[in-house]
């Protein structure tokens, strides 16, 4: 499959996303400049982590007006796959492609840690190779990762099973202690109504090789890969560790 990774001024996880797609998955991956107006034929477009436009005004508030965002919105509307990681998640919320918003961590501190998240639904391109309730280990690094939305939106997200990832302890319990930023209902990632746009604060692209710790992110990227290349079926549930 073909991945497109958008590079905004201030993006800094674009290289890792490209590397995960190209070197680890063995897929085609292209960097897309934020001033481009097309997506270079990408099946899945990734909005990577970083500090686009210096996080000026609000995280993601200026990036949503980059020329490429029209193409991203069109791709999303047509059912194409869109993945926003960290700052990419913030941009998708600002652009209205995902509901809610990400505000300052309740601690007011930047948090850099390895956390555990529970897969809440396997009915997405990014999680269909996992099991529901499975706990993944992924790194986080953000200052504004506290997911908020009004009660009606939260209820709808839960009802429609659009909470994709939730911060939990290793046993899969969504405790306050397992919540690194104060996100409402421990939400770490959500999808749109069409389930083709996903945003999450944790960084699966940093968790694809043993050398740097967890490889749980690889399972998510492989889900997307098999979703595109073999149709919906694919990736067997994990039985052995790794």
């Amino acid at each position, binding site marked *: 499959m073909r991945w497109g990774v958008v590079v905004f001024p201030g993006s800094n996880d674009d290289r890792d996303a490209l590397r995960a797609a190209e070197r680890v998955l063995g897929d085609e991956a292209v960097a897309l400049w934020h001033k481009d107006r097309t997506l270079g034929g990408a099946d899945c477009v990734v909005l990577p982590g970083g500090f686009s436009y210096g996080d000026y*005004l*609000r995280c993601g*508030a200026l990036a949503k*007006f980059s020329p490429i965002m029209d193409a991203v919105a069109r791709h999303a509307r047509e059912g194409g796959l869109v993945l926003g990681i960290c700052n990419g998640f913030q941009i998708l*919320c*600002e652009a209205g492609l995902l*509901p*809610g*918003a990400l*505000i*300052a*961590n*309740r*601690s*007011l501190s930047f948090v850099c840690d390895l956390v555990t998240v529970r897969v809440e639904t396997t009915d997405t391109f990014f999680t269909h190779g996992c099991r529901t309730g499975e706990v993944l280990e992924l790194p986080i690094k953000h200052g504004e990762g*506290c997911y*908020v*939305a*009004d009660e009606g939106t939260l209820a709808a997200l839960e009802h429609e099973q659009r909470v994709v990832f939730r911060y939990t302890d290793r046993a899969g319990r969504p405790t306050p202690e397992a919540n690194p930023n*104060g996100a409402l209902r421990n939400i770490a990632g959500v999808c749109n109504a069409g389930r083709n746009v996903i945003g999450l604060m944790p960084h699966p692209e940093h968790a694809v090789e043993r050398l740097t710790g967890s490889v749980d992110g690889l399972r998510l990227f492989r889900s997307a890969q098999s979703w595109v290349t073999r149709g919906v079926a694919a990736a067997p549930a994990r039985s052995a560790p790794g």
Partner: protein
Amino acid sequence: MPGLLARVYITPKRGILDPQGKAVQSSLHALGFGEVQDVKVGKYIELRLEDAASATASARVREMCERLLANGVIEDFRVELAEERR
């Protein structure tokens, strides 16, 4: 020639977590200002506009707020317009 000064006040929406406000409130309490019941920390933005009818300007600034300056999911905004001599 007179221009217009728009003052835009952006505040966290009621009911939305405001960790900054909470932290400032507890610092004020620690300093002995126990009467402080609630703190909201927001943003103040000044815009200098070329001369225009203030009804038009008001609608334009509100649109700026809705499209960029504020995020309606988490923030409220208020606009004040004043004539300004330059």
